[in-house]
């Protein structure tokens, strides 16, 4: 497997870049892969697109060029997201790209960078995230999975859950407790675990879309080399918490809601509800919400363009986007009438799938920081309300 370093596109004008990306998607997105899929695809399905991106050197727009990324500005990264979304390209298994890569680049040893980054770029390593546990959901620092140093090896015991596409991954990074005597945030380390190590078991979990999106991962006396620790011993919490600013912007992008609103319109036309004045008034409200969300989103992107730092208030985007997406999907259920509960899309048209949209919208307010946790944070960090 080889991959090409990307041409340097950092100085290309945005409009030109957009056209380039659009053409690339049209020409290189595999013709036999699903477009506009409502569910995530598995590695076996999405691999050809991953490799096409890899060959062009476009897999990691967010990484610096010296590590094999494109080194793009947030604005250009957004253009790629938009254009791939426009073409309906499937999302690849991107945890290594979005989460682990940047983390290793900041906190990994030279050896770790040299070993792991190229294998992400080539598709040899597909990563899962091992943060959540059955009793550490919103309270992430409550991890119980334990790692004990035994000679030159860490011995890991415990359980992780909600690993997205965990059954596709061959590596997982985890937070593990390495000191039980200090306060909970201070005794956590960040470890890299090959999933073919003896003692690792994966159990896929079906979600409400009847899709095995998540997995539970069990660790039973799993031994890994001492060198698979990233950063300092007991320094894992700080590493894991540092999210890059622009990722916190992108997670609030209006794309999901915009797609859903287009689907709502299509569904209303299909079921004859379009034109009903009460529906149209509700539709306009949703459209106004979407446009104002887009305006707010643009104001953050503008800040990124100007190189300003993004504050905690950025989570407003994610809260509002995810809840708007849900409201639109709930209106879709209404509009669908008797067809609301159908398991498959109407007329086989993926846009006409009220139940699918309804279910797909549910986890957006739960994962990546639940709306409740985000409101807690906003209340304290932005409004300065007391504990």
């Amino acid at each position, binding site marked *: 497997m080889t991959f090409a370093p990307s041409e340097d596109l950092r100085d290309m004008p945005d409009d030109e870049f957009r056209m380039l990306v659009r053409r690339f998607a049209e020409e290189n997105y595999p013709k036999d892969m699903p477009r506009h899929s409502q569910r995530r695809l598995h590695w076996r399905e999405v691999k050809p697109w991953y490799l096409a991106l890899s060959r062009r050197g476009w897999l990691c727009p967010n990484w610096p060029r010296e590590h094999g990324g494109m080194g793009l500005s947030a604005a250009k990264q957004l253009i790629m997201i938009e254009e791939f979304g426009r073409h309906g390209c499937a999302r690849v298994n991107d945890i290594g790209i979005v989460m682990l890569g940047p983390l290793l680049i900041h906190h990994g040893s030279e050896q770790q960078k040299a070993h792991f980054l190229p294998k992400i770029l080539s598709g040899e390593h597909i990563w899962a995230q091992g943060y959540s546990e059955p009793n550490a959901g919103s309270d992430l620092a409550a991890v119980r999975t334990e790692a004990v140093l035994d000679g030159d090896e860490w011995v890991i015991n415990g359980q992780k859950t909600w690993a997205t596409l965990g059954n596709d991954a061959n590596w997982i990074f985890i937070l593990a407790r390495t000191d039980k005597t200090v306060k909970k945030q201070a005794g956590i380390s960040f470890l890299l675990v090959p999933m073919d190590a003896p003692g690792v078991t994966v159990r896929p*979990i079906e979600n*409400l879309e009847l899709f095995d999106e*998540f997995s539970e991962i069990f660790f039973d006396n799993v031994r890994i080399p001492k060198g698979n620790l990233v950063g300092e011993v007991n320094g894992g919490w700080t590493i894991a918490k540092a999210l890059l600013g622009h990722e916190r912007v992108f997670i609030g992008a209006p794309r999901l809601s915009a797609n859903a609103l287009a689907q709502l319109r299509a569904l209303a036309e299909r079921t004859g509800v379009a034109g009903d004045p*009460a529906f149209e008034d509700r539709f306009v409200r949703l459209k106004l919400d979407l446009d104002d969300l887009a305006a707010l989103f643009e104001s953050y992107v503008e800040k990124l363009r100007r190189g300003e730092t993004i504050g905690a208030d950025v989570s407003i985007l994610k809260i509002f986007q995810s809840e708007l997406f849900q409201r639109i999907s709930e209106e879709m259920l*209404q*509009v669908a009438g008797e*067809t609301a*509960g159908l398991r498959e899309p109407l007329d086989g048209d993926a846009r006409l799938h009220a139940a699918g949209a309804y279910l797909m919208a549910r986890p957006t307010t739960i994962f990546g920081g639940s709306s409740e946790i985000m409101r807690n944070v906003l209340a304290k960090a932005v409004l300065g309300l007391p504990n």
Partner: protein
Amino acid sequence: MPPQEDDAAENVRMIRDSTRAVVAADGDLSRIRAQRFQQSGFDPAIFATMAEMGWLTLRLPEQAAGLGLGMAEYCALTEELGAGLVPEPLIGAALAHRMTGADLAEAGICVAAWQDDANSLGWRKLRIDGGRITGTKRFIPDATGADSFAVATAGGVAIVAKDASGVRLDSEWTQDGCSLGTLDMTGAAPLAVHAADAVDDALDEATLATASYLFGLSGRVFAMTIDYLKTRRQFGQPIGSFQALQHRATDVKIQLELARASIASAAATLDAGAARAARSAAVSRAKCRANDTALLVARETIQMHGAIGFTDEYDAGLFVRKAMTLCNRFGSSAVHRRRFAALLKEAA
């Protein structure tokens, strides 16, 4: 307390007790889970038990071999079935009997096929020409498991056997693991034809029974959610101690109590023999409340459970999927608000 009230309350208690025959007392849902997406989506043996208990004809008068029960009793029954997510097509079968006023035992499992279009309560499009029917009925719950259909037409309610010539049935799975059928008839000859006088009343009753089923499932899954809030711990305390969740749980409770009152008052309105417009208005009102409450409960159930609420293996999801499937059956809230508004205008 006047003696009639006593009787009614006693009847309601008895019918609730009787559902123990088909609803696990401990809330176990393994049968329900296993039944999903299998064959017809329901168990004919359990349906037969329901028939034996007389539930299919519970709204027919005793002289017509019915149980002669009121809507208060019927709603109590479907509330319990909803709490247990019982998938067998009681409402569809009881509707078939109520539309025809007849004992349909010879037609096997017979369910109602009344609906002409989505987003409408209309049922009068088809006609019977020369004793034969041509046309389509849509959105027939649990049609694959039925032997025959009570087809509502402008010319009467026709009993049409599934295996009759000129009859074609298509079916799609619904989110709850049951199915919706489309019945295409081309010159189909009915087994029998009954007068259509009772169809409007029968549809109102089935609508209200469905509202009560939704209320039953909403109440049950809300109780599960409250239990979860009491036991699940985060940040060193039960999540049910967080005030924001307490207030939202209270908002759900308020809607549940409104739904309970709305359904009970609609049942009382029907049982008191109020005028047609008043009956239909009360039914539309109750269906709106039950629909909206079920969807509110569904949303909060998933959100309050967090990630586990979005897994299929956790039972709460079974209730969510049933709510999604039933919320628009016999009319979405939009459809019923429209009807209620029209009746309001009429009354003014």
